[in-house]
């Protein structure tokens, strides 16, 4: 069923009784050409592009919980391509371009809102680092603007210009960046993949990876053995656990990152604003809640819940940047399990096992990467060849000395 204003009117006139499920609930077949482990944004996007762009349609996505139950439904919805390193920027810009056509491609409104992401700077050194980044973006053909203090005051008058511990001197703005409705991304890809024949199998937990003669033959699951020609892992925070089933040892630590939403408010924050005096970032959802977050809790964890000290620190940064947040009430906090990599950048690669493919290490950056991650992973799976924009994101970069360390923090995951 194609979605449009017309379909809404037509269905309304028949009492909205004729809408169909957005994706099927198929029984798993005994064998697929490709099995994707993980029914989050990346797994679903991979399945979608495999079927649509690369003609691989005999595909299953196995999800241990409900579809989209991981980080795709538990993030701060920010979409941007304002990276500095040549290993990252082309990849995220490729993603940004896919975002820009995603609604038409999927026939699903993921509410991409290109409201602009601005990262504030508070010192000359920080400005210089952002200038370096902005110019790296321009090198890739991505427009960026340096907004100086007086201009910023007009644009975002409610920032802490007068009493800040670290003076707000300006910001680096990417106008094309913004937000998207996170759940809709999962649902839209699921619907799209389903329409191209992909089987999305929820509540199907992979418990083992069967190998014969050094290649994967299928997976043991809570719903029985399912055979496959190729196996692709997109298990985010659980990547180490799934990898372990194939004796892979990965450069990952799982960490909890909290995000928060306030009570609904009338429109008051029109951009995504990132605080340079800390890690705080905030935007307003179309429903009115202010959605925000900051740094990870710091210890390795598989629990989808955070600690109070970190939450308090997030609020401190928020009020430091926008004093007027003080009386706004925070409604809900949630925690996501981040697959933090050793250089803060993701991994899309083959593995030592010929038909086993890996997609992990998304750290904080998974949501914005969803389209490119899916596309590049599908490219890799279908063609056994790395997509050009993902060349720097290979697993062997650590052994070869080509870490993509955007933060320059070195091999300690909780510093990225």
């Amino acid at each position, binding site marked *: 069923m194609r979605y449009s204003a017309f379909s809404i009117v037509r269905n309304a006139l028949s009492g909205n009784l004729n809408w169909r499920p957005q994706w099927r609930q198929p029984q798993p077949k005994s064998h697929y050409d490709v099995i994707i482990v993980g029914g989050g944004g990346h797994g679903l996007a991979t399945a979608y592009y495999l079927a649509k762009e690369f003609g691989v349609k005999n595909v299953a996505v196995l999800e241990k919980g409900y579809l989209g139950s991981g980080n795709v439904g538990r993030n701060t919805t920010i979409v941007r391509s304002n990276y500095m390193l040549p290993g990252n920027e*082309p990849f995220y810009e490729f993603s940004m371009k896919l975002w820009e056509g995603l609604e038409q491609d999927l026939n699903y409104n993921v509410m991409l809102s290109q409201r602009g992401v601005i990262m504030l700077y508070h010192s000359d050194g920080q400005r210089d680092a952002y200038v370096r980044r902005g110019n790296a973006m321009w090198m890739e053909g991505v427009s960026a603007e340096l907004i100086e203090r007086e201009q910023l005051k007009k644009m975002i008058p409610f920032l802490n210009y007068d009493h800040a511990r670290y003076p707000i001197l300006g910001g680096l703005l990417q106008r094309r960046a913004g937000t998207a409705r996170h759940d809709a991304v999962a649902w839209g890809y699921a619907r799209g993949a389903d329409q191209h024949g992909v089987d999305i199998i929820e509540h199907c937990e992979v418990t083992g990876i069967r190998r014969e003669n050094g290649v994967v033959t299928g997976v043991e699951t809570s719903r029985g053995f399912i055979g496959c020609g190729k196996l692709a892992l997109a298990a985010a925070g659980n990547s180490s656990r799934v990898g372990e089933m194939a004796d892979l040892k990965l450069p990952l630590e799982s960490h909890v990152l909290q995000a928060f939403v306030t009570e609904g408010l009338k429109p008051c924050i029109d951009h995504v604003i990132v605080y340079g005096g800390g890690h705080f970032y905030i935007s307003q959802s179309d429903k*009115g809640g202010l959605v925000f977050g900051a740094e990870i809790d710091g210890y390795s964890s598989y629990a989808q819940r955070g600690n109070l000290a970190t939450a308090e620190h997030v609020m401190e940064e928020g009020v430091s940047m926008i004093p007027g947040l003080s009386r706004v009430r*925070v409604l809900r906090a949630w925690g996501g399990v981040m697959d933090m990599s050793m250089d803060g950048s993701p991994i899309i690669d083959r593995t030592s096992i010929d038909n086993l493919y890996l997609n992990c290490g998304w750290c904080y950056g998974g949501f914005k990467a969803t389209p490119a991650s899916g596309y590049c992973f599908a490219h890799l799976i279908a063609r056994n060849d790395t997509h050009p924009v993902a060349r720097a994101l290979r697993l062997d970069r650590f052994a070869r000395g080509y870490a993509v360390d955007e933060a320059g923090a070195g091999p300690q995951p909780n510093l990225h």
Partner: protein
Amino acid sequence: MSAYRLSSGGLVDRSKVLSFTFDGRPLRGLAGDTLASALLANDQLLVGRSFKYHRPRGIVSAGPSEPNALVTLGSGARSDPNTKATVAELYSGLTAKSQNRWPSLGFDVGAVNGLLSPFLGAGFYYKTFMWPRQLWEKLYEPVIRRAAGLGRAVLERDPESYEKSWAFCDLLVVGGGPAGLMAALTAGRAGLRVILADEDFRLGGSLLSETETIDGSPASAFADRVAAELRSLDNVTLLSRTTVFGWYDDNVFGAVERVQKHVAEPSAKLPTERVWRIAAKRALLATGAEERPLVFGGNDRPGVMMGGAIGTYAERYGVSAGKSVAIFTSGSSGYRTARGLAARGMSVSTIVDSRPDAVDAAPDGVRVVRSGSIIDTKGSKRLSGIVVERSGYEELIACDALGMSGGWSPVIHLACQRGGRPVWSEDLKAFAAPDVGGGLRVIGAANGVYTLSGCLRDGAGKAAAIAEELGFHAAEAPLPVIDAEVEPSFAALWYVPGAKSKAFVDFQNDVHAKDLGLALREGFGHVEHAKRYTTSGMATDQGKLSNINAVGILAGMRGVSPAEVGTTTFRPFYTPVSFGALAGTSRDTHATPTRKSPLHEWAKKNGATFVDSGLWFRSAWFPRGGEKTWRESVDREVLNVRANVGICDVSTLGKIEVFGVDAAEFLNRLYCNPMLKLPVGKARYGLMLREDGFVFDDGTVSRLADDHFFVTTTTAMAGAVMSHMEYCAQALWPDLKVRFCSVSDQWAQMAIAGPKARDVLQQLLDEDISETAFPFLSARATALRGGINARLFRISFSGELAFELAVPAGYGEAVADQIMEAGRAHDICAYGVEALNVLRLEKGLLTHAEFDGRVTPDDAGLGRMFSAQKPDFIGKHLSARYGLTAADRMQLVGLKLVDKDKEKDMRAGAHLLKEGMKPSTLNDQGWVSSAGYSPVLGQHIALAFLKSGRERYGEKIVVWDRLRDHEVTAEVCDPVFVGSENTKLKA
């Protein structure tokens, strides 16, 4: 006029009249009222508009679960949007405004959405607004954003203050109702350190609305008695107006106390709110139970309320919700409410009971319709009647208030915040708390115990057990006596069939039963999907009233038990908490600590302009009369250092004393260059790597004795280097005999640099510091004339003859004064970090502008420092990787502007392109790390990292700053612009 204040009764002070306004209208209430009870007493039932359809909405509850009665309290910078009128304590001068309506509450244009509702079903926005794409940000989204949202945040600076406090106790009791009070009393009498936190402004919980008597007197009197005794116990802390919002690891609870949210003129001496972190050995959850609304046609009409809430308004506040009250119930609680109202003299006309076989006794004169359903309600902005259906017959019954009672759900939110999932109980027909171990136990109605006597017994019993566990003894005490009680019973009724208009599940978000049907039809039958697709339970009340019915409806439609549907996840916060409370005092200039150098006052009196540098304030430059721009000052300072002498505060550098027989070995393993044979009395520049081979930090190492070193770090990395050293000493090589401590704050350190530095400094010292006696890279402990202990280093960050002098921090200012005095004849000037930066730039020396965490020693031109001969040091092994040694790595170079036009400059952050090449990531040749004007050379210079840069001296390169539309051509050169022969340094 239908809702009104009863002529007597209630726990309000009828002698204390409080005036307040609602939407500008002056109204009066009584001390002891909430805003909601006062509004009701003024017959102001309509208080808000719903989120999506802008439907008129009235007060539904009498507590924190309220979905509808959200108002903005206060005005200007003191606005509190989305405040629940049902928990807002009334005070004189309170101003309240309704929300989400335009132009007025009575006439709201947004209500047109209601007419369009067939087109605006759950998730409609995912299916449209996709064409043309540009219109989303320009048209569709702004319209949606404006229509959505509730209250308005002013985003002005909050004039009030907040604070935080830790508390520790043996037992935390959450909730001051019958179970909680009894538990606190039992534990308090047994001697435990008890904290009782209750969200209300008056202790007692349901006792304050209770119609039963305890020991023959009103339940509220019992609550007062217990509260008084608790107050008299030193080991008990009562925190009223305090909501426990979260349960965290190690039995730590977060709570927020509204210290003065209930006063018109807050005292500046008190915080407005205070966040408590309560570390409790044990905790008892006594949070009561929530009555369930019924999902029937027209159930959102103002005047339709929770049955228990109507009872509470009558009993506690002496307010009647209507002239003629009807009750719709699926259990005995509706009858109990009716009896209470009748006892207060209110008119109860009808009880509609969904059950066919109820045996509960109705008050005299109240008609009971068994097997009855309400299928619609009448009235516009206020209920005027209900359409009751029974056995196919419909009847319109007039009433102006309707109490709903669909049974009870224990409030178990906190118990489920750490991963435990609620457990469906067929007995309770509700989700109960999971067993979460001994740290947190549930008592009273939260535990599914619904009689008053049962609650008291449960509270006393579990508190006594905890006392025993913790080594106390609770003496047996007789429990209070309650008159005849009935164990409440009810039938689960998730949805009332036959609805003739919308039957709302989530009032605030306007989710009605059909939305859930649509969600299921479209494949969103999982409880999490249904929530996310319909937004049910996502409003400011987080579904406290609605979630259970949504689960029940989904279960019914899917033909499974609610147990199988399960619940969505309970997460903090139990009720919303302000940013301000959670941030406490850490805001504005107190957001992080401020560090000031021991020479801060000295710099200040010398006219310094300061700049932030991490936590530090550093003197940036010292403007003198007539200088209009910072550049003028900096140029003068630089030239003066090169020509005469300057003094600069370098106290912010990290300073670490290292002792021990293995100190040299330890440092030798820490730095990539050799440290083992550093002679006593000598300093050496040192480079530390991370284990991955990239530069971590640089600094100096001075050997003051065989087993005593003094190490400096950069300002930025002082903390990180100290931690790194501790890690290495403790976790890697604990057998090395080495001890160290940070002395960054103990020493004031100043650089005295310039050709006349020695002449100035010698005046303070008896010791000979001539080139022969104290050559370049000398380091030793000494004493100033007059006896002040000092350390003197012959090190330079400028290429000039230079010393660094360290004196105990307390003497810093006096010594700096003395140096200025001694230097006067030599034209000494104070210089700041800006001049320092230019001086080091001219000399090609590096800072963390260059060492950005991705640079190897060789990249920085310091490859010779990397000691391959040493058997081991941090970072050695992985430095050999291909990627770290590849020939095309970016290497440090200098850049000189080709065009000496003074207007043109180079700026840090620019990238580098070969002449004639198009900008692209592939063509990117490198980047400028530091740039500035060299007053010595009279031109702009820069340090940059350029691919294979050291082979490219003399090449012309484009310095490309597209971000600022700035492009110049520079010549690649050696990064040492000034004094490459080091003659001045070693003079």
